[in-house]
């Protein structure tokens, strides 16, 4: 059995909660503990409330979990919001000089810290966080050394800062250990050091490891992290990184680069992706490899820029007019973001088409531990039928009608293989046929050729596999990042004796139709997804003719926790066919001034 603790750190933007969380995550990861972090933050630059949830466990974690059992309240607001979410056995740490506790629920240990006394009157306000963190690691039963080594690492070049932090943390540590009861859960530490990563960084590093050489972007949450990573690492890694004037420019630039023969990529979120759609059709008809990431967030339109949703599947499927080959992949976890980059670039070049990657806020801004060895892997590079040098062929046709539909691609610059790629329909040689009176025969041939390319793709996918109780007649179906919470929910249900299997989809277009039918036909299918309309359920029905018997959906901005899915499935098993679950923690409801003529407007988009 896994031992785990979910820590919540609450404060205002600017209170330093984020670095406190980072330090705790790092301290844990350095002891071989697994961590999964998700932050609900107010999209304000300063002020507002933010709630960082760190799930710490001695075995692998796939999701944010659901029951916070330790909290640090950095301000009164956090105390007021979250104390009531705690259950028996939880601890609540706060600056006793400043924050007043509410009435603690039964069995919750309040741990005020005399911060003035412990940190000294002259300490910076931020030191309260360090004191609290020291206290927390003390009560979690960590070695103090694990925390101090993090300060040493972080402030390598500033020994005074290290000392100040270590002193404050130690004071908190000692005081807490001496004064309060340790947290009941004991986490088993090891010597392994785990890497602490954000999904966006993993997408970026994955792309670099796959040989991406041109990256273009326009800032847009929650995809901006990829740009930041690329901008800071491109120089060292020889990647040309451009911030462009808008997403239309981004997509067209990435495609121009892809057409020239480099592996190129861009990323955005839904609204920016909408602007890219016209260009996606260009990559389709020009048969240009390019990887485009859409990091989904709460929609529609500007929607909820800092919240989670899986609502852009329809958009990816419907991106651009007409029919053309495209591949759509939704990674299922932060780790999978890495693998998906390897696959996406290979598929893009092999099938000469745009590959659309659907990440989401939960993964991209989420933060978790991964084994360093998993990251330190040379990617397989398959560039498909690519001609980099003059091969003497005097009869080169860029869009040759081959049995596979794939026409060997020459990169511009090679002598004797000149061609012009057009967005107009064209013949095998690239000569447009939009200018001739009509040519239904060539037209049909070229449409068929392009479509044929997609026939091979499914063979390159990792086959589908049932998880959980594979023998069960009830299958929970998810796509993308919902895998994490759902797999745990299914595991819990199985433990409770409820027989359910889990089928997680990652490859969305082209679809693993035959496999899906083989695994799902005749079973009770429950689709669990993070949007209102049931976009994936619709896709499953459209592609495989499988109608979900029931649906569990969430679209309130906060990610699925395993408990929501467990509840949802139980409701379904009781007979409901649509369960719209919701986050109801008291801290997750912020009243704001209502009333006519009382207006206020939003901000991080």
């Amino acid at each position, binding site marked *: 059995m896994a031992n785990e603790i979910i820590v919540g750190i609450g404060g205002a933007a600017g209170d330093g909660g984020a670095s406190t969380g980072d330090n705790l995550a790092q301290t844990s990861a350095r002891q071989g503990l697994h961590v999964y972090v998700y932050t609900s933050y107010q999209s304000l*630059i300063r002020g507002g409330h933010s709630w960082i949830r760190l799930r710490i466990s001695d075995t692998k974690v796939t999701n944010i979990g659901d029951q916070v059992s330790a909290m640090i309240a950095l301000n009164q607001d956090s105390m007021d919001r979250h104390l009531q979410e705690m259950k028996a056995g939880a601890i609540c740490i706060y600056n006793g000089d400043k924050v007043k506790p509410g009435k603690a629920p039964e069995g919750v240990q309040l741990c005020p810290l005399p911060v003035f006394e412990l940190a000294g009157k002259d300490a910076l306000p931020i030191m309260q966080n360090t004191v609290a963190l020291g206290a927390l690691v003390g009560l979690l039963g960590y070695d103090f050394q694990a925390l101090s080594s993090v300060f040493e690492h972080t402030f390598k070049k500033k020994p005074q800062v290290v000392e100040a932090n270590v002193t404050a943390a130690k004071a908190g540590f000692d005081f807490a250990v001496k004064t309060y009861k340790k947290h009941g859960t004991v986490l088993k530490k090891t010597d392994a050091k785990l890497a602490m990563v954000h999904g966006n960084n993993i997408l970026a590093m994955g792309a670099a490891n796959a040989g991406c050489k041109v990256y273009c972007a326009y800032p847009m949450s929650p995809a901006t992290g990829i740009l930041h990573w690329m901008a800071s690492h491109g120089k060292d890694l020889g990647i040309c990184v451009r911030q462009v*004037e*808008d997403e239309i420019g981004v997509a067209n630039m990435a495609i121009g680069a892809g057409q020239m023969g480099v592996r190129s990529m861009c990323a955005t979120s839904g609204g920016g992706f909408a602007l890219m759609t016209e260009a996606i059709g260009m990559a389709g008809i020009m048969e240009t490899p390019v990887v485009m990431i859409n990091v989904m967030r709460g929609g529609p339109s500007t929607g909820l820029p800092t919240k989670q949703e899986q609502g852009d599947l329809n958009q990816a499927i419907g991106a651009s007019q007409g029919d053309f080959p495209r591949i759509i992949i939704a990674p299922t976890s932060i780790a999978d973001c890495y693998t998906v980059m390897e696959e996406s670039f290979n598929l893009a070049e092999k099938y000469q088409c745009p590959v659309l990657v659907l990440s989401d806020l939960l993964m991209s801004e989420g933060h978790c531990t991964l084994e360093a060895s998993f990251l330190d892997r040379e990617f397989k590079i398959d560039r498909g039928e690519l001609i980099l040098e003059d091969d003497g062929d005097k009869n080169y046709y860029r869009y040759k009608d081959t049995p596979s539909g794939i026409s060997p691609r020459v990169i511009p610059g090679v002598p004797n293989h000149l061609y012009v790629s057009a967005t107009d329909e064209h013949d095998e040689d690239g000569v447009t046929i939009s200018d001739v009176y009509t040519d239904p025969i060539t037209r049909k041939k070229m449409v068929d050729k392009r479509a044929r390319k997609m026939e091979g793709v499914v063979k390159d996918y990792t086959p589908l596999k049932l998880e959980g109780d594979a023998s069960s007649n009830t299958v929970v179906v998810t796509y993308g990042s919902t895998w994490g919470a759902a797999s745990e929910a299914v595991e819990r249900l199985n433990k409770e004796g409820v027989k359910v299997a889990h089928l997680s989809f990652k490859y969305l277009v082209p679809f693993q139709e035959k496999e899906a039918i083989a695994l799902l036909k005749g079973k009770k299918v429950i689709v669990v997804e993070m949007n209102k309309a049931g976009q994936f359920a619709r896709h499953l029905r459209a592609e495989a003719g499988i109608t979900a018997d029931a649906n569990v959906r969430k679209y309130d901005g906060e990610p699925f926790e395993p408990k929501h899915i467990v509840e949802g499935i139980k409701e379904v098993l009781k007979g409901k066919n649509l369960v719209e679950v919701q986050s109801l923690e008291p801290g997750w409801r912020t009243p704001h001034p209502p009333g006519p003529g009382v*207006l*206020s407007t939003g901000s991080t988009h």
Partner: protein
Amino acid sequence: MTTATLQPRDAKLYKPEVPPDWCPGCGDYGVLTVLQRAVGELGILNENLMVVSGIGCSSNLPGFFKSYGMHSLHGRSLPVATGCKMANHEMTVIACGGDGDGYGIGQGHFIHSMRRNVNMTYIVMDNEIYGLTTGQTSPTSEPGMKTKSTPFGNPEGQLNPMALALAAGCGFVARGFSGDINHLKSLYTQAIQYPGFALIDVFSPCVTFNKQNTFGWFKERVYKLEDKGHDPSNWTAAMERAKEWGAQIPIGVLYKNPNPRPSIDAEDPALQGAGLATIKKLGLTSEQRKKLIAEYL
């Protein structure tokens, strides 16, 4: 449509109950406050004002301004506002947003709106950075500036909105500074009263992400064109001023066309009567239909 009073009104009338949530010290506070004063001074009723923004910190302004408003899409305030004006030309339409919004992604609309010359005011809160997305380079960022997207320095040239506006044929081109409230107010009132497209670029420092172009930085540099005897009716002189950037940066009205060409809404045959949105009887008359059908017989 109620008619506008010409009586000055209290700026408080334009303050909704919810206060702005910009970072403390953000330049946008000044931009907002002055706008409330300026429309009050002009006595424009709340319901006759349509304030349209894009997306960005600055584009949150309509939420803090008591009037009709649209907080639209990133970069699209101008076409949206143009649609509003065409639909009801009797209303005062003010578009606003940030430098990224208006000069970055919105650049195409920016140039074309000036060429099109719709009678509206456009306020750009120019902080030389992308604020809302936490600090990337903007088109007006200075070359070499380090931001999250250009950690080794901005490699691109700096966009000059004043010069572009002049080159695009804008009839009213001004620049203000959020650190000089009274001066800014007069730019607003002149712009709103100008019978055509009026641009005001306002230096509105981002205290959180732009550590280079701060209030202090601007205070040291800005000078008022009025103080230097600049003639705003002289396009060539305006262009010379527009090029100034460095130790001396002008604020004030760079250019005001002394013979404004009629705005497009003033000339549109469909916009000669009441606002289209207020027309109650919709659809063709029988005579109109018959005349149209005759074309096909």
